[in-house]
Each structure stands twice: as structure tokens, then as C-alpha cells.
């Protein structure tokens, strides 16, 4: 089971808006208002909040973190695939003024998604979107607590498929980037105004690759994948199936 720690290009990015939550979320092309790279720990690794700002102009704030993993040295042999993978993040919920307001158990979770390759700056803010405002697939989630500790998140099949595409690829093509989001950002749910009677906010500290003892770590288990042939007989004309790239027509099909 090879373990890969996050590349030193990992970072937190921030965007703010005085207009709307969706404006703060942005799109694939949105450059954030700031970024924080090179930290050992960042109390604003994940941040979702809506606060009263300057003289009646309120502010939506979102922080997302991105973790790139170099998988170029992890080639797969013929018949091999990723059997399972976990991402371990060292995290802590930050409460107090401007901090985390626990709403439901879902609020306390870190949500993982795929992401595009990093430029290592505020321009990376929108990398969680594959195009426009469509996010990369969700890879799973894990619960953080107010005590600092490891959150081990088991990646789902979408996560495994995503990682497989980078395994053993040369150069930048071998680096898989995973985004860590807060509940309100992941679920496109606008937070309530702090102090307004329906407070809801997410604030989770994360560690990064520069942390000596708590680096974000991707653990991958590879192994043989099924090569058993399956034969489908008597596929009728009415059973024609079309996928993105394969058209299966009536007749005999053998996998």
C-alpha cells in the first residue's frame, strides 16, 4: 500500500463576495481574493461564513483547500487497478468568534472532490469545478472534531477512478489534485448571517505538506482487478444501450 504525501504546492484559497453565496462560490474561471500556500497549519483551511461587514454591506466568505499528489511513480501493471484509497487530513474544528457553528453532523464533515491542476495561487480557487459551475465528482467525506486529529476519508469509486487516471503518468499528468470543502460550499447552501438568529458557519483548520508530523497523506491499495469473461446472449434490438463512448448493439457481446 503506497503512501503519498501532499505536494508542497498544496494551499488554501479564499473568495469573498458582498453579493451572494453563489457569487462567492464562483466558477471554474474564478480567481479568489487570496491564497495561502506554504503554511504548516491554517485555521482557515475550510471556511464558510456570512457576516455583517462595512455599514450594512454583508460579506460571504469561502475558503477551500487543495492537495496535489504525485502519482507518477505508481504505475499499474496489466490487470492491476486501485482496490481502495484513503486520504488522511489532520484537522480541527475552530469555534469561537467568527468560528464554526455546529448545525448538524453534516456541518462537521470535510468533503472531498476532484480538482484541476494547481497554479499555486488565488487562481486555483475555482479548480473544484470541472467546467462552469459543475463541480468534480464527490469522493466522500469525513468528520472533524474540536480536538485536533486525523480524519481518515475512504474514497468512493469516483475517487478511485479519478486517481487511476493519474497513476504512472509522466510529469504534471501524474499529479492528482483533491479539493477539501466545507458542507455549505459543497452542498451549495448559503449560510445564515452570523448574529442574525440563524447562524451557520464552517471553520476547520487543516495541516499541509510543510507540517513536519501531520502531512496530508493518500494511501492507495492496488491489486488485481477482475478479468473474468462475461457473455451476454440474445441482446435484442430493443435493448440497445448507448454510453458516452460505447454503443452496444444487438447481438452477442463478450466482456
Amino acid at each position, binding site marked *: 500500500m503506497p503512501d503519498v504525501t501532499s505536494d508542497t504546492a498544496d494551499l488554501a484559497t479564499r473568495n469573498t463576495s458582498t453579493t451572494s453565496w453563489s457569487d462567492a462560490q464562483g466558477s471554474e474561471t474564478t480567481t479568489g*481574493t487570496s491564497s495561502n500556500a506554504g503554511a504548516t497549519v491554517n485555521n482557515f483551511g475550510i471556511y464558510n461564513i456570512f457576516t*455583517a461587514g462595512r455599514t450594512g*454591506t454583508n460579506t460571504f466568505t469561502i475558503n477551500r483547500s487543495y492537495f496535489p499528489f504525485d502519482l507518477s511513480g505508481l504505475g499499474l501493471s496489466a490487470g492491476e487497478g486501485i482496490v481502495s484509497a484513503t486520504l488522511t487530513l489532520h484537522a480541527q474544528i475552530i469555534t469561537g468568534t467568527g468560528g464554526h457553528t455546529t448545525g448538524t453532523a453534516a456541518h462537521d464533515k470535510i468533503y472531498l472532490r476532484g480538482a484541476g491542476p494547481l497554479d499555486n495561487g488565488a487562481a486555483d480557487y475555482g479548480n473544484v469545478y470541472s467546467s462552469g459551475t459543475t463541480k468534480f465528482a464527490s469522493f466522500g467525506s469525513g468528520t472533524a472534531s474540536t480536538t485536533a486529529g486525523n480524519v481518515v476519508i475512504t474514497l468512493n469509486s469516483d475517487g478511485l477512478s479519478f486517481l487511476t487516471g493519474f497513476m504512472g503518468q509522466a510529469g504534471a499528468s501524474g499529479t492528482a489534485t483533491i479539493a477539501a470543502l466545507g458542507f455549505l460550499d459543497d452542498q451549495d447552501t448559503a449560510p445564515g448571517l452570523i448574529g442574525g438568529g440563524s447562524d451557520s458557519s464552517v471553520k476547520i483548520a487543516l495541516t499541509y505538506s510543510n507540517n513536519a508530523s501531520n502531512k496530508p497523506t493518500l494511501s492507495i491499495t492496488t491489486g488485481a482487478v477482475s478479468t473474468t469473461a462475461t457473455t451476454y446472449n440474445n441482446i435484442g434490438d430493443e435493448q440497445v444501450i448507448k454510453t458516452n463512448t460505447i454503443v452496444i448493439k444487438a447481438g452477442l457481446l463478450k466482456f
Partner: protein
Amino acid sequence: MSNWYVSSSLTFYSNSIILTDMEHEVMMDWEDELMSASAAYVTENGGDILEVGFGMGISAGYIQSHSIDSHTIVENHPQIIPKAIKWASNKSNVTIVSQSWYDAKDSLGTFDGLFYDTYGDLDCKHFSSSLNELTKNGSKVTWWNGRTDESNDLNIPNCTYQEFDVNPPQNTYFNSTTYYLPKKEF
């Protein structure tokens, strides 16, 4: 109530005030020209001036540069109050009111000019309806305006707006290149 802001820690730099717990800018010195213009407008009548929010003290300095009778400053953040008191220590016409403007409004009196510039102020929704008891006939009122057109978040009607070309550094409260300074005469 704006308790969350009052209990928030601020970090003071030579060119800005930052809300430490959120890493939000509260005020920055790029606003100098806007503070000067705001002070000039509210002091056009001279007389008694009310300033809600001391901040970096930029507008307070400009208000003092005009010919006025009195200058009342309302400030409720515990880290800014001592700075306002120190600033006022050699100014005989300045009164510092160390509490929320909304809690104090019934005892403040009426004014010839009023500049309103707060942060984290959930009571700002009451500002428009409070103006009748704070102003006189002919009073001139302006406030920080985060809107990027001829409108305002405080729902104060019948204003005029003076445009200013600005070039703010990236911040969490204003990133447009045109500022619309609101002017309201009673």
C-alpha cells in the same frame, strides 16, 4: 446587536485594521480621499457633527480640519475606544461615546452633520428610521457606501451620489473602481 464584532479581536497595521478572527479587512487607508470628501460634506453647515465609528480616525481628522462647534464620536469596539479617547485628548470640542450607536441614540441629541461608518453592525437596518431623531432641518448626512451604483444598503431614499475613481487593493469589503458617495440633506 453586534456582539460578535465587539468581541472580535482586531489587528492594527499602519495602513489597515484587520478582523483577526476572520481575516477580513475592516478599514484601509486607500479610503483617505473618500473620508476627506465625506467629512467635507457633513461639515458644510458647521455646527454639531456626529460621527458613528472611529475606525482608523481618518475621517475624524478631516472633520476636525473644518470649522465646527462640536464633534461627537460613537465607538463601541473595546480595542478602538482607547485609540479614540487618546486621539481626542487634546481636542476640546470632541466627545467620545463608548457604546453602540443604537443603544445611545436616544441620548445623543441632534446634529448638523452626520457621518455613519460602522462594521459588523446588525443595527444598521435601523439607521434610516433613526435619522429623524438625530438630524435638524438642513442636516447633511453621508455614510460608507458598499454599493457599486447609485443605491445604498441602508435603504435611505432620495439621495444624490458623487462618483469617485478609486483603485483599492484586493479586500473583503469594496473592490470596485468607482465609489458612490451618498449625500442626503434633511
